[in-house]
């Protein structure tokens, strides 16, 4: 299935058809149009602010950067973001290491349920969890009504923001450290003990060094996620008067006239910081994420916790409650509570919020619009992800290598920066002459959704396609299958579960996507996430909570229905595909 090229005793047989030769070019066009052009057009303004002026000018100027440094608000936002990211990384790592240890190396009961909790927190959109905490802690929130506001005064602060982010992001640390612990062979410990090392020395000198790269990897992922986060920055951090850099970019774009040079400068610095963290993460892990057991040795025997078994499980449940149940439960409860001028009034229950949520101009409409957009983004993302993966599978040219690097780097680009790029690029007057002035149209929003999810889709698709042995493709070709038949009859069905996972990931991501949606939603047609946030900003806390509850229930039910249908439709075939040996696939640098 590769492009023709020299080999040791000959070259790979090229398919030879025009369609296949055009595939890498099409893949390049997609990446350039969706990602490269908008980003480049924005970021270049950090140094060439008049490049797109009339007339254009190549005057080099760091006015945008200087403006940032001179503005105490943005300077504070930058420093706050870096400190918050470092502190959250430490806190999330501590939680993640402890949880990973309990899950992988002890006989703690209910490990399945705890893993489920970890995944639930992992996939929950950060702004929804943050809003749950706002409903609890805000001056008009539930804690003010029920507990006199003491919780709010304590937790609606930078420390509260840190706590919420650590509770949201600790699953990254768990997912990084757990495989590393699992991969340690028992022989490594036995060798140390037989050489005279105590348990403490064994942990210090043997086990921790083996696991350290994974711990560092998890910490750096959390660091990057905090820097990129907009959900908490736009909600809880604002309420806590704790400016963060993603919100400062948003503010620069909401100014009139729009301060693109400052937005560009802030974006460039943010992307650089996140990219540095991601590079550090890749360097820390090298080629192997964790020490593997050689020669088929057994992993470490589980530690018996004895009387500590149930307290450990209770501690995990408490963590789960804080991370998910409290904000989700608060949201659910608040959805049944009337909102008065003073905020939530929990002394009676009502369904009025739900009726209002469906009825408000932007309630049900926003849900349906987002549903359609998300399904379209998911479908496009899967098709483009598969196409790009196949196009790049064997291509060795320089352009492909550059675009692969760009796509990988794009994972480091926060959604707010991507949205800013789209605002700038697709609003250029020159594009109106060719009918491509897309800013403010649903097309721009859809393209941005696809652009945001494409790096992950390609990464997952690449990992999945790599699992198909060459011999499976060669067997199909020897049996008479051309490229189309190979893709249709072998690649797509063999990896059906992967396409479903990618599709669901893109769907859920787009459904509750906030930063790009805030910047690009068409006038009068806000997305679901924007509609929810607007309800909160308009102090319609109960309605906002009801809209959140309805939409998350709807999305969860839809995803569950799809998964159930798949399982029930051809159970034998589903089992057969699941039985094929697989390797770990990464999402955002974490093995899943």
């Amino acid at each position: 299935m590769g492009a023709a090229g020299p080999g040791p005793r000959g070259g790979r047989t090229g398919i030879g058809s025009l369609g296949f030769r055009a595939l890498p070019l099409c893949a390049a066009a997609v990446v350039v149009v969706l990602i490269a052009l908008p980003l480049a057009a924005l970021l270049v303004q950090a140094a060439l602010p008049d490049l797109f002026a009339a007339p254009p000018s190549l005057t080099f100027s760091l006015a945008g950067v200087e403006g940032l440094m001179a503005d105490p608000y943005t300077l504070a936002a930058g420093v706050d973001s870096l400190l918050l990211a470092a502190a959250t990384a430490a806190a999330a790592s501590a939680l993640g290491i402890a949880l990973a240890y309990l899950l992988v190396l002890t006989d703690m009961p209910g490990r399945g349920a705890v893993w489920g909790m970890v995944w639930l927190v992992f996939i929950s959109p950060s702004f929804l969890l943050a809003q749950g905490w706002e409903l609890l802690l805000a001056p008009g929130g539930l804690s003010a009504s029920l507990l006199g506001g003491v919780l709010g005064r304590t937790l609606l602060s930078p420390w509260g923001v840190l706590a919420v982010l650590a509770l949201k992001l600790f699953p990254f640390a768990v997912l990084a450290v757990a495989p590393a612990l699992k991969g340690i062979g028992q022989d490594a410990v036995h060798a140390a003990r037989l050489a005279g090392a105590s348990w403490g020395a064994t942990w210090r000198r043997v086990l921790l060094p083996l696991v350290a790269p994974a711990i560092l990897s998890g910490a750096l992922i959390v660091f990057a996620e905090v820097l990129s986060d907009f959900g908490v920055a736009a909600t809880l951090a604002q309420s806590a008067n704790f400016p963060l850099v993603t919100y400062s970019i948003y503010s620069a774009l909401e100014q009139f006239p729009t301060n693109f040079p400052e937005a560009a400068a802030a974006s460039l610095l943010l992307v650089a910081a996140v990219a540095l963290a991601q590079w550090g993460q890749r360097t820390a892990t090298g080629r192997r994420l964790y020490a593997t057991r050689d020669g088929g040795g057994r992993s470490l025997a589980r530690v018996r916790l004895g009387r500590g078994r149930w307290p450990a499980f209770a501690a995990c449940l408490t963590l789960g409650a804080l991370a998910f149940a409290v904000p989700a439960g608060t949201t659910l409860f608040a959805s049944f509570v009337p909102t008065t001028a003073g905020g939530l009034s929990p002394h009676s229950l009502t369904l009025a919020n739900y009726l209002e949520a469906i009825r408000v101009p932007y309630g049900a409409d926003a849900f349906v619009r987002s549903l359609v957009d998300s399904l379209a983004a998911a479908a496009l993302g899967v098709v483009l992800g598969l196409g790009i993966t196949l196009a790049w599978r064997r291509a060795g040219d320089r352009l492909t290598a550059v675009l692969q690097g760009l796509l990988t780097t794009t994972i480091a680009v926060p959604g707010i920066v991507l949205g800013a790029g789209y605002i700038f690029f697709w609003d250029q007057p020159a594009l109106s002459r060719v009918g491509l002035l897309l800013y403010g149209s649903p097309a721009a929003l859809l393209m941005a959704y696809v652009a945001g999810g494409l790096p992950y889709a390609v990464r997952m698709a690449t990992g999945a396609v790599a699992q198909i042995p060459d011999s499976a493709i060669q067997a199909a070709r020897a049996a008479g299958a051309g490229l189309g038949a190979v893709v249709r009859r072998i690649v797509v069905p063999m990896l059906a579960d992967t396409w479903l996972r990618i599709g669901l990931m893109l769907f859920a991501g787009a459904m509750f996507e906030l930063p790009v949606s805030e910047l690009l939603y068409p006038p009068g047609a806000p997305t679901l996430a924007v509609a929810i946030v607007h309800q909160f900003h308009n102090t319609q806390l109960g309605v906002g909570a009801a809209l959140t509850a309805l939409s998350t229930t709807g999305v969860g039910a839809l995803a569950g229905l799809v998964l159930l249908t798949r399982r029930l439709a051809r159970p034998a075939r589903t089992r057969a595909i699941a039985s094929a040996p697989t390797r770990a696939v990464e999402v955002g640098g974490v093995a899943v």
Partner: protein
Amino acid sequence: MLGEGSILAVLGPSGSGKTTLLQLVAGLLVPTEGEVRLGARTLSRAGWAVAPEKRNVGLVFQDFALWPHMTVAETIAFPLAMRRLGARARAARVEELLALVRLEGLGQRYPHELSGGQRQRVAIARALAARPGVVLLDEPMPNLDAQLRERMRLEIADTLRREGVTAVYVTHDRLEALSVADRVAILDGGALVQAGEPQELYRRPATAFVATFLGPAALVPARVVAADHTQGVVRIVTAVGVETEAYAPHDACRLDAQGFWLLRPEHLALGDGGEGGGGRLAWLARVDRCDYAGSHWQVAVRSPACPEVAVVVHHPRRVAPGSAVWLTADPSEAWFVPVPAGEVGKAGGDASESWADETAGSVRRGGAAPAGRT
């Protein structure tokens, strides 16, 4: 060139180019020189190759390459679907192949529900489905256990012969190659060393490499002292002090040609009481080691005149290491393996000059001429 309906085994150590050869025939690699032809049709030549899907070549992979999402029937029917065969004809052919490979009634099973041997049979059936011009088998046995491998080896050969297909069978297992194939080709370092019928290669190896690769062999340095080029017979003086007539390749039938006298365990015996007798060659040796091998003892002996060569003989009883024994050999199967010109120094060299001066008491010169060429 491979005859229609015959099985060619391509044999060689790892890295000798067996799989590369198969991939060239299958069209998965483009050759830099040479041609691949199937009948009158050229499939590949330097820098160009017909795509694999257009070649009508069946391929059985080492890892079977079954598709986990297809049932046995769907897998076997796949090549027929690619050739747009009608549903009824496809179903009939699938049933025929299921019967051929003895998988009747298992058509609806998935690969993970099959044993290793069953998966291999599915892979073979798929390769045979579209009645290909040639079937290529790339080391189809390594993933099976030893007992199953032995059974499947014969089953594969029977299946291929029943279908009357031409097959190229790649393996590094000499026993597989010798038992399955009509012809064997030996590869080493990407080059074809020798090709021919299995018996021919085993009894008349062209090089020392082929001799040792195809079975246990001792190679005693030897030198030609008389040659009959027309008969392909030479008279050799060996490093163990024995002089005998032997068959040899025509290009080795020249005076002073250097090479080896090929000794295989089945042609050797430990003599009773010291004499060869019955026309057998005999010489004195000392037992180096004696290892039990179930049906016999493997006795390794070294001649004082040529201590660097250990000769292995199968004996029904144990012989104590260090014992002096008479080693006898059947001269009728004697074969002289020539050494390529560039490696002459390794064929005994100066040692050959001293053979004739060795103690005569340790030598019994046999006299029987080799039997007519077989």
